[in-house]
């Protein structure tokens, strides 16, 4: 009797667990197959390079890809030096109260909703600094969002390097700067690149923060102070404001996802190569 009820419980639990896993996987396969099936029809070379026509229903996404990459470039140019500097300071030069308060403000920032960053970017970059709706404003707003993620993983990577390596470097007479450049940063490279990858993923996926900072204009940008439409904003605009834009929206969504997957893989392999070269050859 007892044994039977045990078996029944086990069976019930097994069924529930398998069913929920199947439900989750099924829902996601549904989503991914829809994206691929609707998007693949649009996907060809001319879609990638030509300009959008008829409010995006026809034509391609050439200028939008360029704007997206420019916004990302601006964001990375601001994020990498600021993030590396802060992470090095946090892990090598400070401890106690100041480190705690820096970390706390970063934690708060990591949780701020992206639309709030949109408001902030609009107030600070577009209006206060007079940059207007521009690629520069959008990129700098994204940089503010990427900083907490990038600093956190870079600092974690630096802190994970064994203390013996620092001792060893010091015993060999290396200055701290030299030890950072030749030992610590290369050893932390995988974590740094992983953090960069995460930040790029978040930046490419971002829509809400860009609507009021880099704007809607879908022409090819002439300079960084031009407004430029990011890929995610393009998807939003096509599906919400353009009737009959769904096909192009799915095409753009597929391009965006492929871009994200490619960046992830490239960054992962770069991290591996960089690490093996620097550590083994020196």
């Amino acid at each position, binding site marked *: 009797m007892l044994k039977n009820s045990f078996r029944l419980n086990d069976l019930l639990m097994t069924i529930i667990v398998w069913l929920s896993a199947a439900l989750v996987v099924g829902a996601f396969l549904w989503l991914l197959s829809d994206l691929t099936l609707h998007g693949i029809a649009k996907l060809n070379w001319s879609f990638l390079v030509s300009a959008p026509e008829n409010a995006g229903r026809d034509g391609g996404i050439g200028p939008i890809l360029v704007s997206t990459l420019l916004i990302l470039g601006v964001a990375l140019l601001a994020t990498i030096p600021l993030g590396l500097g802060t992470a090095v300071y946090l892990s090598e030069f400070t401890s106690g109260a100041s480190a705690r308060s820096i970390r706390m403000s970063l934690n*708060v920032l990591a949780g701020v909703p992206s639309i709030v960053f949109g408001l902030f970017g609009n107030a600070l970059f577009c209006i206060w600094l007079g940059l207007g709706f521009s690629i520069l404003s959008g990129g700098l707003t994204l940089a503010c969002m990427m900083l907490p993620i990038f600093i956190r993983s870079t600092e974690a990577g630096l802190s994970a390097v064994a203390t013996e390596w620092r001792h060893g470097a010091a015993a060999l007479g290396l200055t701290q700067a030299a030890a950072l450049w030749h030992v610590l940063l290369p050893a932390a490279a995988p974590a740094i690149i992983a953090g960069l990858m995460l930040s790029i993923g978040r930046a490419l996926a971002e829509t809400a923060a860009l609507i009021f900072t880099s704007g809607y204009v879908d022409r090819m940008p002439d300079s960084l102070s031009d407004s430029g439409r990011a890929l995610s904003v393009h998807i939003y605009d096509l599906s919400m404001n353009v009737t009959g834009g769904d096909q192009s929206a799915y095409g753009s969504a597929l391009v965006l996802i492929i871009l994200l997957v490619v960046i992830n893989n490239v960054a992962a392999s770069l991290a591996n190569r960089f690490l093996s070269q620097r550590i083994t050859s020196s």
Partner: protein
Amino acid sequence: MIWSRHSISSPSRADATLARITGGIALAVVILLGLVLMLLVRESWPVLVDGGWTRFFVGDGWFPSSGQFNLLAMLWATLAASLGALFVAVPLGVLSAVFSRFYSPSWLIMPLRRVMVLLAGIPSVVYGLWGLTVLVPLIANWEPPGASLLSAILILALMILPTVALTSEAALAAVATSHLQGAAALGLSRTGIVLGVALPAARVGILTGALLAAMRALGETMAVLMVAGNVVQTPSSLFDPVRVLTANIALEMPYAAGDHRAALFASGLLLMLIVTVLAWLAGRIGTHSNA
């Protein structure tokens, strides 16, 4: 680390310079981040001093052109959508984590995790697009208009599921093997091990993951904006179209001016406050478990 206390007296001038430069950069980052809060307060100041903060919670409703800035209906919609999404996503996410830890055939574990990581990175606007073109018409067939609280809940649940599943799986993986072996040696069935040992031992990690997911759901803009219908009203059923706080900012910011714009900044401030409380809570839970 090892130099942290000696850096100032380090014999190398280069090191002192490096410390000063990186310290300056860190300070700049903190200042930049302090600016976020400062600017939000500054921009919403006109509305905050004129009528006080209570005007956001009393009054006829959200009629910005006549100076009525009652956010309550949208606040309820935000909370209903987020709680509903958690209600769907947390059990499913935890169960799928249990699946990959205890039930899954071993060849399935890695592909499953890859899919989850991929999904965690899919842009919210893509979830919104799919919800708008697939989910909303489906719900509309059943109970018009389709764009509703229900579709917002389902899309949000789908978005936060990977977060819940991945954090729960990490929490379950951190349960000491000796606990599980001990439970098995005592003759507990697999169900007994999962429900009696593994899940209780991993509860802090699972709870922290759920709080992270809640933060993501509360702050999400695009996906909800695209599927929720965006009518300002207190939801009375799952099929009511609703407008959440984040969507309201995105919809009205392009043409808002004066007090209206200030009120939108104030609602951004409110969102930041809610999310900060949740982050603080998650931090507290984390430190308590260590103690």
